[in-house]
């Protein structure tokens, strides 16, 4: 195998390792939230440091790759996409960490009722499945599956747009639960961001495989990072 392929494989491997950690962070944050498992939340937050190290390491690897191999065409797109996927993964990890910090402030699990009403769990499930699907698409590329991920993001946006009203009415009815409501709204906002980031990842994969730029093409409203 040519050396350039060996190096690209190493890069991909590293990225997938990071992916696994972030996936664990994301699914564990859901777990921690539902059971108010502060210990698990702490673990997720701690893993953030590891993810950061991966982030730096992969950046460095990409830099070396550019310097030593002067990639062109598909190789160039792959490294460029790895760079951006890496950044997105790191931020998804940060988001999971952020959710866990909220969990640490909550004193009890979010009630099933509220979770269902605000469609929080549905959001979580969609975001997680998008995340897992994008990993699969990176390994075995399938343009249809990749575009499916982009569509799923719309559902997350829809839920998010409606959630403010749901939570406002919850807080009106439960003045004692205002704090919980704020936290809940925060989590929903974070999950919506996760959706955007996974979307970015999927777009990067499509760019790498098909050399098509999908970013900013659809007329969807992109929310700025908060």
């Amino acid at each position, binding site marked *: 195998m*040519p*050396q*350039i392929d060996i190096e690209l494989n190493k890069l991909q491997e590293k990225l997938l390792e990071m992916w696994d950690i972030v996936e664990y962070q994301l699914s564990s944050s859901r777990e921690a939230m539902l059971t108010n498992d502060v210990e698990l939340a702490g673990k997720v937050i701690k893993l953030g440091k590891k993810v950061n190290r991966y982030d730096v390491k992969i950046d460095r690897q990409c*830099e*070396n790759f550019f*310097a*030593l*191999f*002067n990639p062109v065409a598909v190789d160039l797109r792959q490294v460029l996409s790895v760079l951006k996927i890496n950044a997105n993964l790191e931020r998804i990890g940060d988001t999971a960490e952020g959710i866990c910090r909220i969990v640490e402030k909550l004193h009890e699990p979010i009630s099933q009722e509220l979770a269902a009403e605000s469609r929080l769990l549905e959001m979580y499930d969609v975001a997680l499945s998008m995340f897992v699907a994008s990993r699969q698409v990176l390994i075995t590329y399938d343009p249809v599956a990749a575009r499916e991920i982009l569509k799923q993001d719309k559902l997350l946006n829809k839920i998010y747009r409606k959630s403010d009203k749901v939570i406002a009415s919850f807080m009106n009815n439960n003045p004692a639960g205002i704090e919980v409501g704020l936290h809940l709204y925060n989590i929903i906002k974070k999950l919506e961001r996760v959706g955007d980031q996974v979307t970015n990842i999927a777009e990067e994969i499509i760019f790498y495989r098909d050399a098509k730029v999908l970013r900013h093409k659809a007329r969807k409203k992109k929310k700025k990072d908060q």
Partner: protein
Amino acid sequence: MSKKVYKLEAKNLNAYYGNFHALKGIDIAMEEKAVTAFIGPSGCGKSTFLRTFNRMNDFIEGFRTEGDILLDGRDIYDKKIRVDELRKEVGMVFQKPNPFPKSIFENVVYGLRLQGIKNKAVLQETAEKSLQRAALWSEVKDNLNKSALALSGGQQQRLCIARALAISPSVLLMDEPASALDPISTAKIEELIHELKNDYTIVIVTHNMQQAGRVSDYTAFFYMGELVEHSKTKALFTSPSDTRTQNYITGRFG
């Protein structure tokens, strides 16, 4: 504490062609079983330096060295060292493929014949092993008696590598081994270098910086007879410590 013995070492090496000071106080130590690339503009002394390791410069009238060159800790310019023995230990591949006008087989076993080895089975076995090592065996195994000059440039160069490997050296010097070849042949040679470094210490002179990046573990930058910088290739190509190196590898020289 015993000092580490490097595979190849130069200690305060100065070299002259007559009055011309070609190499100025070079200190370098090279690891075993690693690829070290020498880069630098033409006339910077990198080829001269490479050729001191198997004393190919001895032929040039008016050439002399000061300082030490050590192979496994032994000074190769010592009077007790026999040059032909040294060259069995330190093989060399040249810029232009230079097969002898003989058959492929005779090219590979030339070094063995020089040593007086006549045993057919030994010659045959060594030829096959060396050609396999040089990734040429499958292409020539049915035509071992064909003239080496009938091979393509890339094949000729791999034949020259096989020829060098046949006398089982531990160091392989390569003087711009791919500069006369097309990109496909170049890629094959580079891949070969990656495989060979598992067993050999390789020093390669190259004008092609991408090539240095692709194949080497360490890179040494020479300028006007001086060794400006020697470090891991990754480090040298991402954050060179000397501005001259930076200017050279970014193509902003002079």
